[in-house]
């Protein structure tokens, strides 16, 4: 895998930039004039072509959100370079927009591109955010995603999901002949690729916060064991050296530690170990199954599932294993929790008499809400924005696919992947 480098540069414009909440319940209309270029001649035309591709990708990104509604860009609506830093606010206000995102693409003598991105509040007539990147020409998609994220964050205050990755288990074949491979793609479905070759059964990929590496469960040794793969090099290693069944890995939000489950006899407990190895520290000791641990965003707490009370329920403990307390008391069984990146919610799979569905609950056990109707939903994973959840849904014929659902209760949308998929995991925003 190619390593992406975005060199952040400072681009000049006066005035303070800071995020603000528009405070309107409906979507904010945002203008996206075509990205322009200061270059002239043939080179200028090339840069304008890259800028137009980037403009369309930014529009596609923003269209996917519930909070922003981009105006359809017009390629003939030529946008001059000076306009990037000094937009005609009244013109875009008249078009019905409240915000504007645009930028420029400039060629550099070393063959790379400078990519500038600017976000404006049209009512107040001021710059909300700006960012510049130096990129390889082939990385224009990521630069455009970064630009979408800059606009989304400046307007909503939440991290964007555009420059993030999704890992999942790609499934082909049925029954004994089923082949499972770890697959990885950008959150918009581009750059789809396979991380494992399919000769060994694999489960539950979990991306490091910035998608630099991935923890997963492999049957290469005959029993399930957690392995770590560095995505830039493809280099692999076992998480721990002990000869024991291990699974359910998840990174701490700062990437420094990994929590996971390990069997000792017929007892399944939760352990934590440094992401680069070391001696695992045991965090739970109850008989029965303690599994699926997930850190709070500040790394101080861990939510997990345990059947110590007789059925699977959610528990929260301090990151050192102290202060374990149950937070789920509704009907049915609660499993596979994941703490939201903003800390407000815990998503879980609820097992009920008719199947499995996805719900959310606050870390103190209040505010429980059912998000999906099932009947065979599982493996929920948060978007970096904390406003959307990716999960697995299995249909009546036993085939599984990936779906996205927003917290506002809208219908789940199917994610396009080349084959069946399970165990999705959504990364944080990449560097």
């Amino acid at each position: 895998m190619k390593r992406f480098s975005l060199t952040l540069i400072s681009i000049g414009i006066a005035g303070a930039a800071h995020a603000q909440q528009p405070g309107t319940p409906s979507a904010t209309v945002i203008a996206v004039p075509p990205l322009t270029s200061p270059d002239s001649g043939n080179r200028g035309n090339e840069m304008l072509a890259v800028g137009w591709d980037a403009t369309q990708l930014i529009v596609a990104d923003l269209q996917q959100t519930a909070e922003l509604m981009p105006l359809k860009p017009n390629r003939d609506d030529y946008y001059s370079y000076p306009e990037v830093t000094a937009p005609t606010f009244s013109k875009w206000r008249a078009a019905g927009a409240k915000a504007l995102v645009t930028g420029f693409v400039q060629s550099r003598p070393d063959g790379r591109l400078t990519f500038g991105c600017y976000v404006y509040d049209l009512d107040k007539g001021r710059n909300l955010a700006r960012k510049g990147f130096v990129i390889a020409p082939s990385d224009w998609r990521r630069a455009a995603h970064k630009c979408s994220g800059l606009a989304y964050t400046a307007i909503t205050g939440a991290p964007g999901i555009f420059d993030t990755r999704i890992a999942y288990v790609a499934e082909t074949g049925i029954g004994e002949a089923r082949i499972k491979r770890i697959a990885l793609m950008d959150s918009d479905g581009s750059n789809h690729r396979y991380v494992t070759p399919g000769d060994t059964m694999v489960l539950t990929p979990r991306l490091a916060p910035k998608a630099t590496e991935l923890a997963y469960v492999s049957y290469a040794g005959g029993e399930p064991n957690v392995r770590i793969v560095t995505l830039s090099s493809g280099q692999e290693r076992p998480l721990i050296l002990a000869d024991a069944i291990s699974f359910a890995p998840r990174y701490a939000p700062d990437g420094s530690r990994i929590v996971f489950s390990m069997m000792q006899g017929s007892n399944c407990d939760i352990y934590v170990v440094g992401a680069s190895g070391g001696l695992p520290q045991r965090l739970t000791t109850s008989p029965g199954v303690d599994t699926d641990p997930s850190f709070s965003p500040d790394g101080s707490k861990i939510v997990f599932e345990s059947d110590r009370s007789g059925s699977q329920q959610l528990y929260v403990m301090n990151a050192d294993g102290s202060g374990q307390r149950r937070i789920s008391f509704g009907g049915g069984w609660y499993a596979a929790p994941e703490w939201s990146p903003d800390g407000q919610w815990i998503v879980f799979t609820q097992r009920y008499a008719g199947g499995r569905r996805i719900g959310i609950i606050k870390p103190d056990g209040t505010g429980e809400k059912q998000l999906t109707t099932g009947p065979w939903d599982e493996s929920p994973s948060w978007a970096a924005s904390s406003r959307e959840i990716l999960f697995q849904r299995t249909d009546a014929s036993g085939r599984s696919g990936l779906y996205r659902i927003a917290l506002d209760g809208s219908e789940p949308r199917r994610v396009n992947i080349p084959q069946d998929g399970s165990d999705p995991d959504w990364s944080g925003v990449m560097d």
Partner: protein
Amino acid sequence: MRRLLPTLVLAVAASSATAQFRLPTIIPLSRAPQQPVLQGIDALREDFAAQSGGTTVYFGIGSVILGAPARAVLAAQAAWLRRHPEVVVRIEGYGDSGDTRDHALAVGASRAEEARSFLVLMGVPSPQVSITTLGKERPGLGRAVTILVR
């Protein structure tokens, strides 16, 4: 763990156990004779299943407790394994279909471990028996299967 009274079914799945396991390819060498255990493993598997009353023990939904029929099968397996100390077995544990993925792995591992512990209790040397869990990844939920490895 749920302490339900397990529903137990006596195992009869002898042929399916051989069907789901691929043997390593044996390359004949002119000088050294092959290990008789390897060559005869199909016959051994058949004999093991017939003498033990089955390769498989079943569990109630959510349960990891061995009921009397399961213990009877495992006791017969143990007697056979004590007579064949050269044979190594692996017990594959399975979860239940309604389970979430990781809970199914844990339950499968616990079921395999319960079966392994019982064999050891019945006098089978513990290096002779290993375990793994298939969770809900393969057909055959709610059971533990003893498979002759070599």
